[in-house]
């Protein structure tokens, strides 16, 4: 566990900003793997990755609600908000860098690291973390002067929760000074598991944090949460173990239906592709630039949605379809540089 303690409201807001970045940073990773699957193949795999990606969007929204509740202002278009992949995660995990890559054993291994439960922490891991590097995320991140490292996303959120507790003890309900009209309500999201909730007080703030933790790594070490929903870490593990988990299963021993994986039915996309990888004047380059432009617009739209115009989330669905279509266009197309690779979205968005 990190020794870092959140002591002021500004620090809490900075951490929540980092949390937004963190939740968002996982989405390009998951979407890249998801859409690299040739449609119609890897059906179980497709939906496992998709379910996690969608829940990361939920978590992002929950964090925005938290930030709004304590008087912050979510900004998804800030320079550096979207990482330049491969990147270390914005919570300071530094034993691995997460990269954009096709649906593959390597990708799943990375996803498992992202979603790893705190309880799986190896003894020495947090002592061996390397120092932050300049290329890491910076926008709205935790104070650069004070090094913070968390082994897992769960630890990071634990620190946020403790900070929330301390500040609440100090400030009482004044902590939740945000405009309730900025909250995005459950009508904008639903799933088989927990839904979206508005944050207006300590109880709802804790609920939101619990939901993120439970859906993510299953902080309690359980495979399924109270609502019977399976945590992300275990969702991904099913791809490695080749079987679905059922309620009552032991860790590493799923006994449900088969999860068939065909690592070959995947577009051979270039990992961590950059615009500069695509020949100048080529159609793939134009499509990749168009993708980035639309993605930037999309983040700007989300920013407005999280600042008092939640209805725009409906419009954003149309953008998501355009992005999906462009992604497929890119991934089906060889780069044309003589390599074996197909193109892919680069997510070079508002780079710092």
């Amino acid at each position, binding site marked *: 566990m990190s020794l870092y303690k959140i002591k002021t409201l500004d620090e809490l807001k900075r951490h929540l900003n980092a949390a937004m970045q963190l939740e968002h940073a996982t989405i390009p990773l998951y979407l890249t793997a998801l859409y690299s699957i040739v449609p119609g193949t890897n059906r179980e795999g497709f939906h*496992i990755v*998709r379910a996690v990606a969608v829940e990361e969007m939920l978590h992002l929204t929950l964090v925005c609600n938290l930030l709004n509740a304590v008087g912050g202002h979510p900004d998804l278009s800030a320079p550096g908000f979207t990482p330049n992949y491969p990147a270390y995660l914005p919570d300071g995990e530094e034993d691995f860098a997460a990269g954009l890559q096709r649906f593959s054993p390597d990708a799943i291994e990375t996803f498992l690291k992202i979603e790893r439960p705190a309880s799986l922490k190896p003894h020495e891991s947090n002592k061996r973390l390397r120092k932050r590097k300049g290329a890491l995320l910076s926008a709205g991140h935790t104070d650069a002067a004070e090094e913070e490292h968390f082994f897992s996303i769960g630890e990071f959120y634990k620190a946020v929760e403790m900070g929330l507790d301390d500040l609440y003890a100090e400030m009482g309900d004044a902590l939740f000074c945000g405009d309730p009209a900025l909250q995005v309500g459950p009508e*904008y999201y639903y799933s088989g598991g927990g839904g979206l909730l508005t944050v207006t007080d300590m109880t709802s703030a804790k609920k939101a944090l619990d939901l993120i933790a439970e859906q993510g790594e299953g902080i309690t070490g359980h495979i399924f949460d109270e609502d019977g929903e399976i945590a992300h870490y275990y969702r991904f593990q099913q791809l490695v173990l080749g079987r679905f988990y059922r309620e009552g299963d032991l860790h590493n021993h799923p006994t449900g239906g088969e999860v068939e994986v065909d690592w070959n039915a995947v577009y051979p996309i270039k990992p961590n592709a950059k615009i500069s990888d695509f020949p100048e004047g080529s159609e793939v380059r134009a499509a990749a630039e168009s993708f980035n432009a639309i993605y930037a617009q999309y983040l700007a739209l989300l920013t407005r949605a999280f600042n008092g115009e939640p209805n725009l989330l409906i419009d954003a669905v149309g953008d998501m379809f355009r992005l999906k279509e462009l992604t497929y266009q890119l991934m089906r197309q060889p780069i044309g540089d003589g390599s074996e690779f197909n193109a892919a979205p680069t997510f070079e968005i508002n780079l710092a």
Partner: protein
Amino acid sequence: MTVQAIDRFSIDADEAASTVFDAVIIGSGVSGALIAKSLAAQGLKVLVVEAGSGNDITVSDYEENVFRFYGAASKDNNSAYYNAKNAPMPRDFETVRLRDGQINDHGYLVQKGPFEIDSTYTRVLGGTTRHWEGKALRMLPDDFRMHSLFGHGRDWPISYETLEPYYRQAEAELGVSGDVEDQLYGGLTFGEEGYVLPMHKMPASYLDQVLARDIDGMTVDVADQSFSLKVRTTPQARNGIPNKAYAGGKGFVPNGAVSVDQAEMGGRCQGNTNCVPICPVQAKYDARRTLMLAIATGNVKLLARSVASKVLVDSASGEITGIEVKTYQDPDQPGFTARVFRARTYVLAANAVENARLMLASGLPGQNDLMGRNLMDHGYLLTWALMPEPIGVMRGPVCTSGIEDLRTGNYRSNMAAVRFSIHNDGWGWATGGPYSDLYDAVDRQNLFGAELRQGLIDTVARQVLIDCMIEIPADPGNRVTVDSRYTDQLGNMRPVISFEIPQYTLETVAFSRGLTKQLYQRAGAQDHSSYDPMAPGWVTHNGEGYVVRGGNHWAGTHLMGESPKDSVVNDRQQSWEHANLYLAGAGSMPTIGTANTTLTLAAICLRTAEDIAARLVAPTAASALGA
């Protein structure tokens, strides 16, 4: 050991045969699933028997159907589903134009005509809700009193008011999206003050809005009445944005995708426009949702690949003593094992055609010979046109709005009721577009490249289709029969259909053609409707020819009434002649008005489930024979 998903709730056929259940339900469609769920909630033990494979409870299974649809050359409404030789399904393309006296036995249905009807149903887990579009309209109060008010068709033994609370239950079970304010016409009432549907309406499409601009306020004079038309959104069982005001402010949590493994949550409608036959994101309700909730109670077992072949009756008491069921292993290979399943109560929920087929094949036409008679469906006249501008075809669910103002009125003394649906899916239903548009552009117009793309935009994007859904009242001559000359691979007799469109309905066919011409004129659209005399469904009226299509809304074969003399079941769908037998579903409906049958049959089945539970939740419970 690997556990197949279905193994978790299926039951070994021999074990099922040695158990006395509280209820055996034939059919896993919406009627059977709703009754199973209600009974299971009371702790009653239920066996659901399904003719199809039943293996459709994971997201992977589901997507196999989605991709079968994508790959199908003919996108008919059963094209998403495997058509097993041991449980064959009717397919619309099997319908042919019949010459006088000709019989068409090429498909599963044997059509004797004289009117050949291209309606189908789906024999898979979840039944025909697997291909339905999802429109969830209520019937109008007048529809329940057709005979008294208009002298046509029949009266129901219950009123709209009696059924109203069950409509609300059905809207919750199916998850209906819609705005009540758009449904306040034709005498419709919605129970308590301030009632809202579980989810907000599917937004009206751009096409709807363009047409509304030209159509709203148009007046139509029919008989002695004047009607002002208005384009209204259509309620539908499709997941949308939950209404916070539902249930007095409690809101509504939509039921998402069916998947026993946790792989997919299901989406809200995202406008893929292939609701029929299959929604790629499971936004559309199908009965598997209800069935899985029923099974989750632990009180319901499923026996799939099993076709009911005979209802066994004690001749002295008239009570049902068992149902013989043929279970097959391979969907196509010949061979089956017949077993008899026993229960305290039997429910046939295999749809209007199959319920009647099974009873007749069991030698049970009823003392009044009404079993299978009064077969109903909606007659559909399709009309299509090109709008002056592209109007965003192929977005949204198949239909988001319709014109409801003519669903009832004094004119019903002379001609049948009609409602109109505006289609967001172009001319598909009428012409096979957009596929046929592509063939036309390539083969006949020799277009390619950019011109081909632009050519398709110029045509497909401007397509509008308005369907006219027209009532066909109950007539004892329209019927399902069986004939030992026509059997399926399991040796079960197939349904033989005799059908005729009455003059009462034809009047409205002609009227609707005239009215839609006016609608297109007002919208500045070019009318392209044409009707092929060689096509099945060809009818003439006053020298004009039309093609009338079936609506897949089979109903009326075991209709309910006040007396055993002129009906098959009572108002609880209980057989007059066999006290422990219920015939459930649209077959019990004495009229179907101008509403798709599903919401109403769901309402009557919820009411029936209460009745069955009240009888069964008594001292004795089901027990194993050997126990």
